[in-house]
């Protein structure tokens, strides 16, 4: 790759975008106007909502007791109006007889008064309110404690509030009248107590005092940690999408893309140049929005907090500086990911218009990932950290909230997943730029019938990339939904059925069916070729040699990301079920041999064969391993399975046959069972205990064994590397281009 070409493409594209009025408007002008305007609007609306005086109708003013008097003149008594409601309650008093003749009429008219908006809320005091109130008070000194309790529970005088909860104004009015009546009630209580010479403290034996241990800075950080990442991410996506559309689909439409493709710039140089441009604009949009938001919060919202009422909407102040720093840092990978995604999608689109259509699906996919961390229960854990975007947002939140040890622990999976996704998206973008069917895609009349016919008519020897991806997703989906319908096995037969049948029906069968229907040569697709016996022996040896290191890796993963108690219980239940196996051979058949055959057929057979059409051998191996890892339900196991998948994929490619992989997989699983078997105290002393460290359950291998195993594995892998292997057409082409370009460059020099 010539970086000067990347720089040239980048500089041109940036200049081009800067000359585009629409881009500049979105990046600079919009945020400059948007946040101050939004801030103003928000405050205006909330002030209006809060300061708007509530019209409250009091029906039955004649039924009110004299002491303490709720009303004074034609309004509520000032002493019962809370400080914040002062001047915001307009009361109208009506007697019951003036309002209606019957109870039904009074209630109906009260409801209508609220529904029509004539009054925001109505409070109705029944006709006998004052009398019952008086009677109740009269009981107090004379009656026994039991009588008083009885009277209190069944015959309390009850005023009624009519509110329209569909209207904000009415809700606020109801809140206000509730506060007024609350204060009035307190006054009645203290009056009652005073009459009986009971100190006021009798009703309030203690007072609650909250001590907030969060510092002012942390409080602000916690509030902003929920808002800022969301704002930054949304703008990073928007800022990436529009330039990407202009740089790819727009150029296709304007005919300048072919001009650039005819220049000596390599496809990857063009993509990197364009990607850097999109990334710069994505980050710039996001940063500019962030700055404008911070400025608005500093200059406008804070002033409003001081000047405005005590219940002003924003009491969180301006975002802390450290938070902004972390955001900027996190923006780099996120912008890279969004830019690469947007670029690939934009490269696929024929025109800007078509490109715009893809924004919505992209938003629909990323929005839940952005909203997930906003849920109150969303915490940074292994599962969350493995979800793209969500992991970054949660990590960011932990950093803003200064939980550094927590952040550090999950930094590796978050960075790993984000970097992986970035690289994948960039690779996809480069492939799109090299794919002539994408670059010169023309409108065709599409029909389901035509399409189905094409799939069968144009079958290839091995599956296409799309078919391989479909197979992977299908297996994941089937297994996911099957897990809901299948009951938890309660004995060995049930466990046998759910495991063996699950693997055969949900993993092997889709791959086999798709191979038969969608490819011309199912045997070649599933790598059912006779292997060299040496490679089978080497694969078995590799499984034995590598198992200690595999166990150590699994232990390291479980130490770093402990399994939750629920999962532990489930795992233990499985162990108990395994212990019920009639004999060890059946156990090996179900848990070692069946998964080896079924999973290899699907992941190294159909899926890997299809993915290898990308021309990138290792890319295909990694992608097939992601699917392989994802089918293992427990996350900690998925990580180990992913690593194992890489090795199995390599074996499949190097040997061109599925059988060495099956042998490796079966032996590896058998060793895991043997280890579990050995860790059972009742079965120790098998003669192999010198291999294992410790004697407690879940013991692993001794360290010298792990190291010796790794050395042997390295030697065996070198042997596999030396084996001749068959490349796909696409891989050969890429190699030929690489060789040809090298030769041509040498010739030129």
């Amino acid at each position, binding site marked *: 790759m010539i970086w000067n070409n990347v720089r040239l493409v980048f500089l041109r594209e940036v*200049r081009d975008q800067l000359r585009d009025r629409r881009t500049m408007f979105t990046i600079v002008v919009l945020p400059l106007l948007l946040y101050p305007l939004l801030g103003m609007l928000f405050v205006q609306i909330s002030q209006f909502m809060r300061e708007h005086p509530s019209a409250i109708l009091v029906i039955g003013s004649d039924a009110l007791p004299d002491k303490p008097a709720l009303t004074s003149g034609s309004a509520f008594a000032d002493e019962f109006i809370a400080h914040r409601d002062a001047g915001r309650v307009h009361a109208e008093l009506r007697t019951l007889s003036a309002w209606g003749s019957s109870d039904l009429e009074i209630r109906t008219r009260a409801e209508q008064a609220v529904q029509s908006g004539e009054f925001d809320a109505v409070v109705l005091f029944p006709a006998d309110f004052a009398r019952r109130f008086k009677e109740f008070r009269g009981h107090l000194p004379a009656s026994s404690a039991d009588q008083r309790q009885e009277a209190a529970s069944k015959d309390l005088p009850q005023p009624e509030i009519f509110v329209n909860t569909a209207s904000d104004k009415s809700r606020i009015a109801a809140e206000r009248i509730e506060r007024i009546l609350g204060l009035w009630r307190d006054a009645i209580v203290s009056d009652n107590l005073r009459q009986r010479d009971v100190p006021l403290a009798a009703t309030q034996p203690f007072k609650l005092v909250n001590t907030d241990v969060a510092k002012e800075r942390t409080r602000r950080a916690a509030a902003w940690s929920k808002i800022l990442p969301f704002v930054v991410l949304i703008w990073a996506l928007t800022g990436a999408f529009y330039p990407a559309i202009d740089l790819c689909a727009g150029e296709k439409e304007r005919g300048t893309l072919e001009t650039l493709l005819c*220049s000596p710039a390599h496809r990857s140089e063009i993509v990197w140049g364009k990607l850097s441009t999109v990334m710069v604009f994505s980050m710039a949009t996001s940063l500019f929005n962030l700055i404008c938001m911070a400025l608005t919060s500093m200059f406008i919202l804070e002033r409003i907090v001081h000047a405005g009422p005590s219940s002003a909407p924003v009491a969180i102040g301006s975002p802390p500086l450290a938070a902004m720093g972390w955001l900027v840092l996190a923006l780099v990978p996120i912008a890279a990911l969004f830019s690469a995604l947007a670029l690939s999608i934009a490269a696929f689109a024929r025109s800007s218009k078509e490109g715009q259509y893809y924004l919505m699906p992209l938003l629909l996919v990323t929005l839940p990932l952005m909203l997930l961390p906003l849920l109150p229960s969303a915490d940074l854990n292994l599962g969350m950290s493995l979800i793209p975007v969500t992991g970054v947002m949660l990590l960011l939140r932990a950093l803003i909230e200064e939980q550094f040890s927590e952040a550090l622990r999950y930094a590796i999976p978050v960075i790993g997943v984000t970097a992986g996704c970035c690289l994948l998206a960039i690779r996809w973008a480069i492939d799109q730029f090299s794919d002539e069917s994408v670059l010169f895609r023309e409108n065709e009349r599409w029909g389901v019938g035509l399409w189905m016919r094409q799939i069968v008519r144009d079958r290839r020897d091995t599956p296409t990339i799309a078919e391989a991806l479909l197979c992977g997703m299908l297996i994941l989906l089937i297994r996911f939904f099957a897990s809901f319908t299948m009951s938890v096995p309660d004995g060995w037969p049930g466990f046998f059925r759910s495991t063996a049948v699950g693997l055969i029906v949900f993993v092997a069968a889709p791959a086999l069916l798709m191979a038969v229907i969608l490819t011309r040569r199912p045997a070649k697709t599933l790598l059912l070729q006779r292997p060299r016996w040496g490679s089978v022996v080497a694969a078995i040896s590799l499984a034995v040699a590598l198992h200690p290191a595999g166990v150590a890796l699994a232990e390291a993963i479980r130490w770093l990301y402990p399994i939750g108690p629920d999962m532990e219980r489930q795992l233990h239940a499985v162990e108990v079920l395994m212990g019920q196996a009639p004999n060890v051979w059946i156990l090996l058949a179900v848990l070692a041999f069946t998964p080896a055959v079924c999973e290899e057929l699907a992941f190294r057979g159909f899926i890997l064969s299809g993915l290898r059409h990308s021309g990138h051998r290792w890319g295909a191996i990694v992608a097939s391993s992601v699917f392989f890892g994802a089918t293992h339900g427990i996350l900690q196991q998925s990580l180990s399975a992913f690593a194992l998948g890489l090795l199995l994929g390599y074996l499949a490619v190097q040997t061109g046959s599925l059988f060495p992989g099956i042998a490796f997989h079966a032996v590896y699983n058998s060793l895991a069972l043997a280890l579990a078997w050995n860790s059972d105290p009742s079965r120790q002393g098998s003669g192999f205990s010198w291999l294992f460290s410790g004697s407690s359950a879940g013991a692993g291998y001794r360290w010298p064994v792990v190291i010796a195993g790794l050395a042997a594995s390295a030697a065996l892998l070198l042997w596999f590397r030396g084996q001749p292997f068959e490349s796909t057409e696409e891989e050969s082409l890429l190699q*030929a281009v690489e060789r*040809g*370009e090298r030769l*041509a460059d040498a010739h030129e020099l």
Partner: protein
Amino acid sequence: MIQVRCVRKSYADLRRGNFVALDGVSFDAGPGEIYGLLGPNGAGKTTMLRILSTVLRPTSGQASVSGFDVVTQPTQVRRHIGFVSANTAVYDRMTAWEMVEYFGRLHGLCGDPLRERMEDLFTRLQMNEIRDLVGAKMSTGMKQKVSIARALVHDPPVLIFDEATAGLDVLVARALLKIVSELRDHGKCIIFSTHIMREAERLCNRIAVIHRGHLLAEGTLGQLTERFGDSDLEEIFFQLISEYDSNPPVSCEVSR
């Protein structure tokens, strides 16, 4: 300079299955020669030239430019060609000078040599007036001139013109043809595709008639006249096309 051997290009088509755009096309073109590809719309001319410019890959067969293979050495091929087509537009938000300079730099030129080369080109192509005009404000003729300057900036030995006069008025088209013949006189190898008989007659040293992905005939105007007994290229063209349409060949052999 240019060698094309049995090039075949097919596309997957939803309706037609495998659609063959080029079927075993072979030809050679040398320096100081304008090789004309004459054919109706949809004959496969653009596909052939896109293969030569490495934008498309042939399904089978071989093609090379200046000794570099179009499939395995595409970057070197692109260094040795200048490609002007109706599909290679100019940037709307870039001036003529910036655009030519950008492509000059992508070809590895810089500093004084690039500036001198550009000054020379802008003078030769009479483009000094539009130097600071952005693409969006240019007329079709101006845009075509910028495209030519962009294709010539690195002084390539091979030039490919794909329907380069399409949409141009008579005056501009005439000026363009003059530029092309001058380039030939400077020893460039030029492939010139067109569906206009007059252009082919006036300009091309050798003409190949291409139809439905097949190269039907090839030779100098004199050779074609002699072979088909007619001095009018248009007549020869119609004769070849109607012969092909009434009796399409079973094999993909090229008739010479």
